[in-house]
């Protein structure tokens, strides 16, 4: 990353936002993730929260311990590549493999998505597994991870009418993003399968298997394996 592409803006009384570019990419995602880690260490107790996203990092600080001048300096130092010991180490994130039971039984929109794409169901399922996705952002609901980018051949617009109930574990596509619904909720994404692993479990530590900057690979499992892993249809 060239630091000239990065800008720091005021967000609020105790928040600054750092922009790393104007489009999501692997390089930008790496820069966001590694900067977040460095800032977490640099700001220590002065940090209230960090919100990494597609191409930005919101830094919320304690105004009674520091101020925007000090936080700007900390951000500039964190962005300065000269102080990075090993950029490749921290920025790739860990790789998580999530099992998915793909099919028309578990993915009510799979047939329609395949038809619109001019592909067979098997082709859609294969293509969905061929990409190692980046976790670009987490939000919308606890544990909802936006993964990108989906191969343009299987990208699909959101449903015209969102569903009232999308089940927990639903694997879905919207435009060039994919996600696993962490809990039952309303939703307008195209459902193509079900993942038996929980993306958000308040009782678990950590409560999410991924964080922003990590990578996710999907691996097809059959119905029996899905059920054996605790999946519910």
């Amino acid at each position, binding site marked *: 990353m060239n630091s000239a592409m990065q800008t720091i*803006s*005021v*967000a*609020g*009384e*105790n*928040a600054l*936002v750092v922009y790393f570019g*104007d*489009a*999501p990419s692997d390089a930008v995602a790496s820069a966001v993730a590694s900067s977040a880690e460095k800032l977490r260490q640099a700001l220590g107790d002065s940090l*209230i*929260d*960090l*919100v*990494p*996203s*597609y*191409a*930005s*990092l*919101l830094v*919320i600080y304690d*105004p*009674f311990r520091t*101020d*925007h001048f000090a936080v700007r300096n900390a951000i500039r130092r964190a962005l300065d590549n000269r102080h990075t010991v090993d950029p490749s180490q921290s920025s790739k994130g860990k790789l998580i493999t999530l099992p998915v039971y793909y099919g028309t039984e578990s993915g009510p929109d799979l047939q329609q998505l395949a038809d619109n794409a001019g592909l067979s169901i098997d082709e859609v399922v294969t293509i969905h597994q061929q990409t190692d996705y980046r976790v670009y*952002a*987490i*939000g*919308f*609901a*606890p*544990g*909802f991870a*936006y993964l990108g980018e989906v191969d343009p051949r299987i990208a699909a617009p959101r449903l015209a009418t969102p569903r009232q109930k999308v089940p927990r574990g639903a694997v879905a596509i919207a435009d060039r993003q994919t996600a696993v619904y962490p*809990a039952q909720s309303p939703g307008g994404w195209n459902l193509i399968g079900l993942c038996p692993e929980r993306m*958000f479990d*308040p009782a678990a530590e*950590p*409560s*999410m298997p991924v*964080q*922003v900057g990590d990578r996710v690979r999907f691996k097809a499992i059959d119905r029996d394996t899905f059920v054996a892993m605790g999946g519910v249809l």
Partner: protein
Amino acid sequence: MSSQLTASSGLQVINPGIFSLIQDAGRFGLHGIGLTNGGPLDSNAFRWANRLCANPQGCAAVEVTIGGLVLEATVDTTIAVTGASAPLTINGHACELWRSYSIQTGARIELGFATSGSRIYLAVAGGFHIEPRFNSVSTVPRESLGGLHGDGSPLQAGDMLPCESQRSTTPLSLAADLRPDYSTNRALLRVILGYQQALFSDLQKQLFFTSDYQVTDRSDRMGYRLKGTAIAPSADGILSEGICLGAIQVPADGQPIVLLNDRQTIGGYPKLGSVLSLDIAKLAQLLPGATVNFEAISIEQAHNALMLDQQYFERCTPEEILTND
């Protein structure tokens, strides 16, 4: 502190009222997994409720929207009610807000409906003892998280809010001239310009800062939707990014939304800046139809305002009420 705590003693909910939530200072440091802050909308009234009970800041209290809460004590303790003006009785006797009362087992606390303002806080000596979820007991219904049962549900009849039994203490009162006045039903909100402010032309900003906006009925703990002069950013959407407290989001219809404690943690609408937290306490007391205006301040002015407010709170000592009543 002499205290006694059993799961079955505290304040029993006879009637939860319109909408009552357990809140502490909020849930912080967890935006990374998509958790919002929660916490009291009127942080000023909330902190005074705890202060009047001689509690440390941030103890769990009840945020009552509009009113209607009825509780019955199964312990001897001290309570204080602050925030929106509403009739308060203890055992049928009219009581004041912004002061503490020692109550005995069997006492019935009844809160009527707000006559000005909309958020009322009821704190108890030592705070309510509830198991935290993600380091906080704040109730966020949208996330099914926090509160008495941990599942984000508002208070229900029959709930027992656990608290310590405490000896009677000298009541404390906040001097009348220091209490906020919610009766104007109007607020001037200070704004720190930021985020995508460059997407709003000077003319659009001028319109925003000189127009009246009305609070609409589509306002809740996530955000207050306002109605007034439409302002148009030069882009409809941005890449989703982190949203801080008070952020002013402007969707395609040009009607601003001020995002509050239960806001989504990321979003893709252009934002003009953020409302000062001290003024969010005022905004969240307003009812639909109320008027708000905006005033731009610098981040340095915002910082100073926060420091001054902290000094004010530390130096304002509640008065001890020595007469028996």
